[in-house]
C-alpha cells in the first residue's frame, strides 16, 4: 500500500517537475516540493493508521475555548 502511495507521488513529481526546471521556476519548485512532501507525509501516516486530529473537533475546541476565555457561554 505504501509502495502504491509512493508510486503515485512519484508519478506526480515526474509529470510536474520537468516543466518547472525547464522554465527555471525555482521558487515554484520549492513551494511545490514543500507541499508535496507534506502531502506524502500525511498520506503515509494515514496508510499506516496513525491517528491524526480531526479538523472540526480541533476547531470546536479552539472556538469554545476562545469563547470561554472571553467569558461567553458555549452554544
Amino acid at each position: 500500500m505504501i509502495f502504491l502511495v509512493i508510486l503515485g507521488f512519484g508519478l506526480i513529481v515526474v509529470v510536474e517537475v520537468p516543466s518547472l526546471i525547464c522554465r527555471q521556476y525555482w521558487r515554484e519548485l520549492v513551494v511545490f516540493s514543500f507541499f508535496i512532501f507534506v502531502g506524502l507525509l500525511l498520506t503515509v501516516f494515514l496508510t499506516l493508521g496513525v491517528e491524526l486530529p480531526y479538523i472540526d473537533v480541533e476547531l470546536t475546541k479552539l472556538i469554545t475555548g476562545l469563547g470561554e476565555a472571553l467569558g461567553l457561554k458555549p452554544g
Partner: protein
Amino acid sequence: MIRFLLRKFGLAHLRKESPSTPEGKLLHSDLEENLALFREELGNSPDVIIRRFTLNLRNELKSAVLFIDGLIDQQVIYDSILYPLMIEAKKEKWAVKGHLIDFIEDNLLTVGGVDKDDRMPGLVAAVLAGDSVLLVDGCDQALAISTKGWEKRSITEPDTEQTIKGPREGFTENIRTNTAMLRRKIADPGLKFEQMKIGERTRTKVSIAYVKGIVNEKLVEEVRRRLKRINTDMVLDANYLSEFISDAPFSPFPTVAFTERPDVTAAKLLEGRVAIFVDGTPVVNTAPTLFIESFQNPDDYNFHFLFATMIRWIRYLAFFLGILLPAFFVALTTYHQELIPTPLLISMAAAMEGVPFPIVIEVVAMGAVFEILREAGVRLARPIGQTISIVGALVIGQATVAAGLVAAPTVIVIALTAIASFVVPTQQEIGIILRLGLTFLAGILGAYGILVGLLLTLIHLTSLRSFGVPYLSPVIPLSIEDQKDVIVRTPLWAMWTRPRSIGWPRPIRQGFGQSPTSPEETAGKDWSRPDDKKG
C-alpha cells in the same frame, strides 16, 4: 516537457535541423550544357521527354522542349508550341528585335501562361508541376510554358457526405476544379484565394479561401501564419495540414472541420470561416470549427425546418446513445439494479444467467468485435463486404447468444450503439474513445464513474478553442442570437445574422422580417437589408 527530455537525451539537434535549400544554378548559353544540367537534376527517368527541333527564324537554331510525359496536355504542346515554332516561324521573314527569347514569347507562342526564368530551381519546379520548358541555343534564359494537363476524376457525389436533397457534386483531387466549383457557388468578387506551396518534396499547392468583407481579417492572418510555419516533406491530404495547424493537437475532438461538398464549403465561407484547399485531395479543411457543426447536416437546410429540427434532435439523441448506452448498461446492471423497472429486471436477469464473464468485459469485447467488423467492412472490396456483414450478424450475433457466451441484452445494446454511432459521422472517432472510456469508468464506479467521465469531457470541451473561437461556442459562452441553429433549425428567413463568434465583423446576413406574408401586407414593406457596414 518533451523539449526537456529531448535536451536531456542529447537529441536537441533533431529539432534544429531543417532541410537545406539548393543554390540556384544559372543557365548557360549553350543548349547542350543546359540540357545536361536538366538531366543532372531530373535524372534519366523515362517520363522526362526532351523534344529537339530546329527553330528557323534568322538562321537555324537548335532548340528543345522539355516536359514530363503524363503531366502535360499533348495537344497544347503540338498546337501551341511545336507547330508555331517549327512551321509558322518558317513562313515569314521575321525581323527579330531585342532579345530572341522575348521575341518568341511575344510573337510565336500561343499559350496563356508563359514565364521567363534563368535559374534552374524555378525551371525544374515548373517542369515537375507540368509546365514545358523551351530552351534555345544561344540564350541563357528559358521559357516555362503552361501546358498542364493530366487524367482527372470527374465530379461525383461524395460517398461520405450524401444528402437526400441538394446538390450531387463533390470536390475532386484537382485544386483548380475545386476552386472553380466554389467560384460557381459564390459569384462574389470578395471570394479570395491565396495560394502557397507547402511540403519540401511534394510542393503541394495549398489555397486559403475566404470571402473578404465577411471574414475576420485577423482570422485569415492567423491561418496564414500557422500554414507558413509548416516545414515538412509531404502534404498528401488535408489532414496532413490540419494536424499541424489545429489548436489542441492532443485533443481527440476535431478543431478543424473537413468536408467534401462545395455547398457546405460555400455556406461556411459565407458565415465568415476560412477554407483550406489542398491539391490532390477532395477534402477541404474549414476553420474555425464548432462542436455544433458536427450536428448540422446540409440536408437540414434543404428540408422544411420543422422536420429538420426533429432530425437534429434525433442526431443529438443518437450521439449521446452512441457514447453513453454501453456505459449506462454496465452501470445499471452492475451497480444500480434498483433503477431498472422490476419486470424488465427479471427478464434481463433471466437472459444473463449463465453468461461466464462480467458485464464490463462482455460489453467491451462485443464493442471490439463490432469495431473489427466495421474496419474490415470499410477496407474490403465491396463484394466481400457483404460476407462480413453476414458473418457478423449470423455467426457472431446469433451463435454467441445461442452458445451462452454473451447475453442477448448485451448484443442488443451493442447493436443499437453501433447504429447510433454512424449518425454523426464527424464525431465518430471521438465516439469510440469516449464510449470505451466511459464503459470502463462505469464498470469501476457505476453511474458516478460515468458522471466523472462526462465532467472531464465537458471541462475539456469548454477549454477547447478553434482559431480563438470557443469550441462549444453558441452554447457556452451563451449567445442568444445564435440559438437559431442549435436546438432548433429556425426558418431560413429568420436567420438574419451570421454566427456571433465567427462572422461578427459584419453581422447582418439578410434583411430582417422577410417571413412570407399575404400580398396586402407585403405591399408597403421595405425589404432592403440593414446597413451592412455597421457593427
